């Protein structure tokens, strides 16, 4: 396919997902309701526990990561989920479209939605609880968000693979997976407090390193050497693995007939 064809296929998915996001109420819940609930409840908890501003920042960074990764990851998963819900998945895979177009197009919409969530949560955190999200500087924020978005893509593509592999039964992964990943990556705590076995898993999760790097700007000692580089290398590895898993899942669905079953 030519570059123009590649771009058009990605753009088709961007337009489709953007339209769907603008017309369905649950997209607004993902964008507004849950992030606001998350920041407000965590903010009050930090007050109740009388955490220091640095400790409060530590916890709120976790909340921001959860909100941003969650909304972006869901958008990537919608690349398949929306077609499964509407039973139109066979039309998608009958067309000359690759998984790169599907996942990249939905990821771009996810990034826009993730940025909106970030702005909203950061503004609310700053206004209500004095959390200064841009304090580490734009470069640090950009790298942190890059880490969030790349990890969202990875989780979202793995969810797409699971749905293509197991059908509707795997739908719960779309909502559960990111929470599991963030629990292990140290959402509200340093990974050093985790049991050894869980800490070992945490070290295999790229988001752990991006959280660690960003928190270091708020005065917390970094737990890893070269966390950003490690996070990027791990992300590249998982991105390739996720892409391969999704590709293999589609091949299997074409073999088992699941693509057709999901369209009935």
């Amino acid at each position, binding site marked *: 396919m030519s570059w123009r064809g590649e771009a058009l296929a990605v753009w088709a998915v961007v337009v489709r997902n953007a339209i769907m996001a603008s017309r369905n109420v649950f997209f607004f819940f993902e964008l507004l309701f849950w992030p606001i609930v998350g920041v407000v409840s965590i903010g009050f908890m930090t007050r109740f526990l009388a955490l220091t501003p640095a400790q409060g920042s530590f916890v709120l960074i976790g909340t921001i990561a959860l909100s941003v990764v969650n909304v972006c990851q869901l958008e990537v998963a919608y690349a398949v989920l929306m077609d499964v819900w509407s039973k139109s998945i066979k*039309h998608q895979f009958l067309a000359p479209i690759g998984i790169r177009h599907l996942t990249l197009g939905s990821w771009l919409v996810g990034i826009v939605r993730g940025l909106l969530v970030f702005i909203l949560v950061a503004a609310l955190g700053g206004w209500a609880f004095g959390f200064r999200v841009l304090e580490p500087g734009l470069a640090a924020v950009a790298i942190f968000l890059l880490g969030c978005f790349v990890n969202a893509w990875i989780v979202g593509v793995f969810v797409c693979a699971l749905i293509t592999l197991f059908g509707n039964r795997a739908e719960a992964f779309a909502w559960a997976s990111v929470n599991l990943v963030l629990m292990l990556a140290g959402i509200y705590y340093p990974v050093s407090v985790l049991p050894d076995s869980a800490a070992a898993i945490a070290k295999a999760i790229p988001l752990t390193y991006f959280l660690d790097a960003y928190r270091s700007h708020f005065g917390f000692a970094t737990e890893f050497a070269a966390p950003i580089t490690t996070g990027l290398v791990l992300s590249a590895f998982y991105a390739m693995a996720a892409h391969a898993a999704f590709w293999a899942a589609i091949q299997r669905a074409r073999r088992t007939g699941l693509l057709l079953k999901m369209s009935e």
Partner: protein
Amino acid sequence: MSSLAPSLAIDARDVEKSFRSGFTGTRRTPALRGVSLVVPRGIIFGLLGPNGAGKTTLLSILSTLLTPDRGSVRVLGLDVVREAAALRRRLNMASGRPSFLWSLRVAEIVAFYGRLYGLSGRALAHRVDSLISEYELEPYRRLPYNELSTGLKQRVALAKSLVNDPELLFLDEPTLGLDPDVSVRVRAHVAALRERGMTIVLTTHYMREAEELCDDVAFIKAGRILAHGTPDALKRQIKLGSVIALRLDPPAVPWLADADGVLRVTADADGWLECVVDDVEKRLPVLLRQLVGDGVVIRNVQVREPELEEVFVELAR
């Protein structure tokens, strides 16, 4: 590898497909058992058969949605497994139970698939407009898909299936559940597509539809092609005989069923006797002479060839 003449749209050889089932997935249910099929370009080809015969499985393999377990399948000269990506640009499909994203409007659905096939800008807008106009969807172009009637959804599916101007179009039960007047219009659209040179493969339960539209048909049952040819050739092949419909006074003639060349006699509620005979030209004059000689008044006589539906019933038996 079989060589494919340029005039062939489909060349399938010994295609087998089975599906795993059961909790452990160890039970295998065969769906296609060595199907071979050749379809020339530029015709409407009907794939007929009872439910569960393997029609949709075969259609799905031909359209690259399913991979075969065994056999070779070349569509438009391309292998459906190894060259699937190139093939997908040249074919399309509409099914009788269409479904698209619920919130997308009619024009947005057609445009989405148009972009996937490489259309953009004015070319895309023109294509969307012309398909919407062709399928009389203009009044509904801004309606979301979930607010459309079944007939309108079907028309959207047909419009979508033509967005890439495919060389080969698969129609899976295209008039399923449609009102008769809408079905007539859909059939007219399908017939018009053949005039453009498009090859169409359709599955249908409606034998009249197949008889009206198809140049060639194949009967599939239990994963095997039982018969293949033109509708007329199939009627001759199955040797169903011809039907002599008689309206007599008195209405019942006991010896008729035992007359030479009469295969069976049935009476309908309107007082017609239907005699299926092996050779109408040979048997009709003899039967009429015998009836008159027996003092039977012949009020009406009609001769007709068996319908495709009767061929279907015979093969599906």
